[in-house]
């Protein structure tokens, strides 16, 4: 177990900058999720940490050791690949034991560790099978097992759940979390799914086009996004964003007002709330809530309201947002103006 530190790490492929001056500290035992849209450099950052990709500049530390020039194997990290990359010709046991044998672990120690991992992951009965005789979920667990047996300083996971169906994904999410809590191994987890990020991460680092936008706890990112990108990226459905003038009692010109659909209230607008007028266009009934699509002039907005609220389509109504749920951004820089 160890801390992981990126210090001004940059990776350039020819003329694309995949990772741009990434500085990030991950504390011992922390579960950090690296999230961002496709192509933002998450995998590249992770692969540099693993040693599969060289850094163009900057330093990467595991513990207090600079690992830039260490071979992947010498960094003592374990990686779970998106494809799992299980060796197809080896049994589950051999898949788990391969890494241990390569560092000349004694036989009974290998046996002990593999059995333990199989037990923890509830796959003792699969140990003699080959990967192709396993279901997707079982393969996923073998991939996790291969990481566990190594007892590495850090787990690196690159979208490990993306090949599972939705239901299995939710289960496995919880399993991975529990495993990580039990083992207390520093984990860097890459995903493009903000829900996964929010539910799993102790901290989340949001990236965009190679640049780290914000790193913080899920709550910090949700309540205090530092810029428009993070505000829109975190939370589902995404935050509404309109020129500040559109919302009465919000900011000034040259600013953008942001508010989450779940914070919109039907009516109100007195006292400490900002408000706006909008016409209900479509209502999506979700059972416990309703998703209301609003239109006002050119603006399209979304509100998540209790099912009790009566919102007939085609009718203009007043909606309000509690002042403390309102985010303001500079229209030019897109940076948050008021926390």
């Amino acid at each position: 177990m160890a801390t992981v530190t990126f210090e001004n790490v940059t990776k350039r492929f020819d003329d694309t900058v995949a990772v741009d001056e990434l500085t990030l500290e991950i504390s011992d035992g922390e579960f950090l999720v690296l999230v961002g849209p496709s192509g933002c450099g998450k995998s590249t950052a992770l692969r540099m940490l693993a040693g599969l990709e060289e850094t163009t500049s900057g330093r990467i530390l595991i513990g207090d050791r600079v690992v830039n020039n260490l071979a992947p194997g010498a960094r003592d990290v374990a990686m779970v690949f998106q494809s799992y990359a299980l060796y197809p010709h080896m049994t589950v046991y051999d898949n788990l034991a391969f890494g241990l044998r390569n560092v000349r672990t004694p036989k009974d120690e290998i046996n002990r560790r593999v059995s333990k991992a199989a037990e923890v992951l509830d796959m003792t009965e699969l140990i003699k099978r080959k990967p192709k005789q396993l279901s997707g979920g079982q393969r996923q667990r073998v991939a996790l097992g291969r990481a566990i047996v190594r007892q590495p300083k850090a787990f690196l996971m690159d979208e490990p759940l993306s090949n599972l169906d939705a239901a299995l994904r939710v289960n496995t999410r919880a399993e991975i979390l529990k495993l990580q809590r039990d083992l207390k191994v520093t984990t860097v987890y890459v995903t493009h799914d903000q829900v996964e990020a929010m539910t799993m991460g102790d901290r989340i680092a949001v990236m965009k086009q190679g640049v780290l936008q914000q790193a913080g706890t899920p709550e910090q990112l949700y309540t205090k996004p530092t810029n428009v990108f993070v505000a829109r990226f975190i939370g589902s459905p995404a935050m509404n964003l309109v020129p500040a003038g559109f919302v009465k009692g919000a900011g000034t010109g040259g600013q953008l007002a942001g508010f989450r659909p779940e914070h919109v209230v039907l009516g109100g607008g007195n006292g400490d709330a900002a408000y706006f007028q909008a016409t209900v266009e479509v209502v999506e009934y979700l059972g416990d809530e309703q998703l209301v699509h609003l239109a006002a002039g050119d603006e399209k907005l979304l509100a998540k309201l209790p099912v009790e609220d009566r919102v007939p389509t085609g009718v203009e109504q007043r909606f309000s947002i509690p002042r403390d749920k309102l985010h303001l951004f500079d229209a030019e820089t897109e940076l948050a103006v008021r926390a």
Partner: protein
Amino acid sequence: MAVDVASTSAIPRRPLSYRARRLLVYVLLVLVSALFFVPFLWTISTALKSLPETTGFDLVPDNPSLRAFREVLTDFNFARFALNSFILAGAITVANLVLASLGGYAFARLRFPGREVLFMLVLATLMIPDQLRLVPVFQMLTNWGLVGSFFGFIAIHLVLPTELFLMRQYFLTIPKDFEEAAKLDNAGFLKTYWKVMLPLAAPALAAVTILTFQGMWNDFFWSLIILGFGDPDVYTIQLGLAQFRFQYQTLWPQLMAASALAILPIALIYVFFQRYFVAGVVASGVKG
């Protein structure tokens, strides 16, 4: 009631036109395969005939006899030729399994200056016909005293460009994830090659085995050039077969009997290695 319950509740049959088309396809396929099989049948039939009878056009011999087979195995040095071919084809196959796979792996994965140029050169050798290389190769082998020797024959076939190319192409299709996983698992270059990449390339290795062995077993050109002059003890099976043709006469039954025997090892290899051709091995480790 006159309604046939069974037929109404049964699955409706495929339309007649469909079945007719199916039948037509099968008939065609059988005809085509028969076409390919005829020469082989002819070989067997001739082998069972007597020499005068071979001039006729009957497929079924009048007095089938195994005499030709017996003569091939006794009077002619068939076993010796077969053994020679086996040694040569075997050694060359092993050499290619090792060297072509190593070379193919290097061309597929190692990054070194001049890699593309070098690979182009390898491919270019495929475009030069053997007949063009005959004289220089023969001179070279003469200088080294390797004419008439197994080593000469093996030396010029140690790594065949087709095999190298085949291995490279196959390695290119294997996702890099496996090697990266192996790297993180502390496996070095050679261990990764041996324990991870080679097993993954099993279908390609099977293909190389079949191609190389068959190619060498059937080779006549270079056998003739390198081994065909001096001592009949170093003759390969194809040179042996040529023995049945004399200037004024061909011993057809014996030639055909020997040919039929010569096909056997190739047929066996096909039967044995064919199942390794199933290329599902690689795909199964990747994706759910």
